[in-house]
């Protein structure tokens, strides 16, 4: 077995057990390209178990996170149907390592290449559940890429027609009805439409073509907050509506 497959198995088992592991780079020297190979092998294992690819997500789309990680390029990960949480649904916190939630904007893709207007059929408010499989949520860039950019789950609110402007919609993250984070879609690369352009480009580089009906999570509009058992979390996006989930033990 190659080293890529071996490391993918380590991450896959950590995700299934909900148990943290140490960073892959603690024992193996990795670059970002190898990180993406591990991610592809990791998700291939999930597909073999019967999961379906349903879309892509971007990470490190905010200036703050890019500065924190010392990078200039966004990263991308894969979404499967098993990660989908129904709007208003419940997730068991115990199944994850140390889950966090962040409010996002999601696009429903037409599968057509080209400008935003023809590539996107609808827009929805969304919550992303992220869960690093690494201890203390600490990682290097190759580590987080290998770990499918911490993807763990997502909630989509109702699909809406694409609004005229997407570049400065107010975004709130509410926990138990209290506003805990405020932001704007401008936090997503200045405009979430740029996220789709960059995501399309990066995925194409890896030979992945965006398909009709896929979901694209453009990136976080605020900082992420830890998901506490018993809490109710809601993303509110100006003009688009809400997406919510409930956390159980």
């Amino acid at each position, binding site marked *: 077995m190659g080293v890529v497959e071996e490391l993918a198995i380590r991450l896959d088992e950590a995700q299934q057990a909900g148990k943290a592991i140490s960073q892959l780079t603690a024992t193996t020297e990795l670059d970002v390209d190898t990180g993406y190979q591990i991610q592809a092998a990791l998700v291939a294992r999930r597909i073999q178990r019967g999961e379906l690819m349903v879309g892509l997500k971007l990470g490190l789309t905010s200036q703050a996170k890019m500065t924190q990680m010392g990078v200039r390029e966004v990263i991308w990960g894969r979404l499967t149907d098993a990660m989908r949480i129904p709007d208003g649904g419940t997730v068991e916190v115990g199944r994850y390592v140390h889950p966090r939630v962040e409010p996002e904007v999601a696009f429903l893709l037409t599968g057509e290449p080209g400008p935003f207007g023809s590539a996107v059929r609808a827009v929805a408010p969304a919550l992303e559940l992220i869960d690093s499989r690494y201890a203390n949520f600490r990682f290097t860039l190759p580590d987080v890429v290998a770990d499918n950019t911490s993807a763990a789950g997502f909630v989509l609110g109702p699909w809406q027609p694409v609004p005229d402007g997407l570049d400065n919609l107010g975004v709130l993250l509410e926990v138990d009805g209290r506003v805990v984070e*405020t932001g704007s879609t401008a936090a997503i690369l200045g405009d979430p439409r740029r996220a789709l352009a960059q995501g399309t480009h990066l995925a194409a580089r890896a030979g992945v073509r965006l398909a009709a009906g896929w979901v694209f999570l453009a990136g976080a509009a605020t900082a992420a907050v830890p998901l506490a058992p018993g809490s109710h979390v809601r993303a509110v996006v100006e003009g688009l509506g809400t997406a919510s989930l409930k956390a159980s033990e």
Partner: protein
Amino acid sequence: MSVEQAVAALREAYRTGVPCPPLRGALLAEGDVETAYAVQRAMLAGWVAGGRRPVGAKVGLTSAAVQRQLGVDQPDFGTLLADLAVPDGDQTSMTGLLQPRVEAEVAFVLGADLPHEQVTSVDVIRATDHLLPAIEIADSRVAGWDISIVDTVADNASSGRYVLGTRPVRLADVDLRLCGMVLEHAGEPVSVGAGAACLGNPLHAVAWLAGTLARAGSPLRAGDLVLSGALGPMVPVTPGAAYVARISGLGSVRVCFAGEG
């Protein structure tokens, strides 16, 4: 005694452009907000005696994060002067600014007095003539922005200058809680937020201010301008830079800073 000394320290900082050490401890008792407002009033009296024109007020410390940082559970206020307004899009000199920071806010322009000591959001809605997008250029006369509540209150709530948009918008046409805010420098967002970042809703900040000023005997009047508080984090000003603030539903406003020297 301490009021006069604090006033002297602040005046010296304004005159020389050199920030003073924190006022708390040496000149003002930690937590003595009342005396700090006495300093603010004495400073204002001097400005008015010198012919400067008050045009309204600003609310400060409106974000939960800033309140936690300063260990307070309520906002503060300062007075806006006509000569500190920078026209939309103009270049403003760095001279007279010590350590400026910019933030985007919703400006309220009142069409009626708000005389009551107990104020509801209905009073504010009825009294609001229109809204404008605004950039506040906050500044501190205290070295390194090392401020406590008494430092910033004495220092006119860390006021500097302000820039107002020129296209009035009706209150009914803006979602003040959900409106997105982005402050851009060279096309890149340097601060983002939403209406709810200001005390849950900028309207609440104005209601707090109206009641507080009425109780202090100087209520808000028709025609007054209110800067209601930041919708996102403050950003230190880079000399030579231009900043554009956009608030969803309110439009945009911009300011340029002259290069140093």
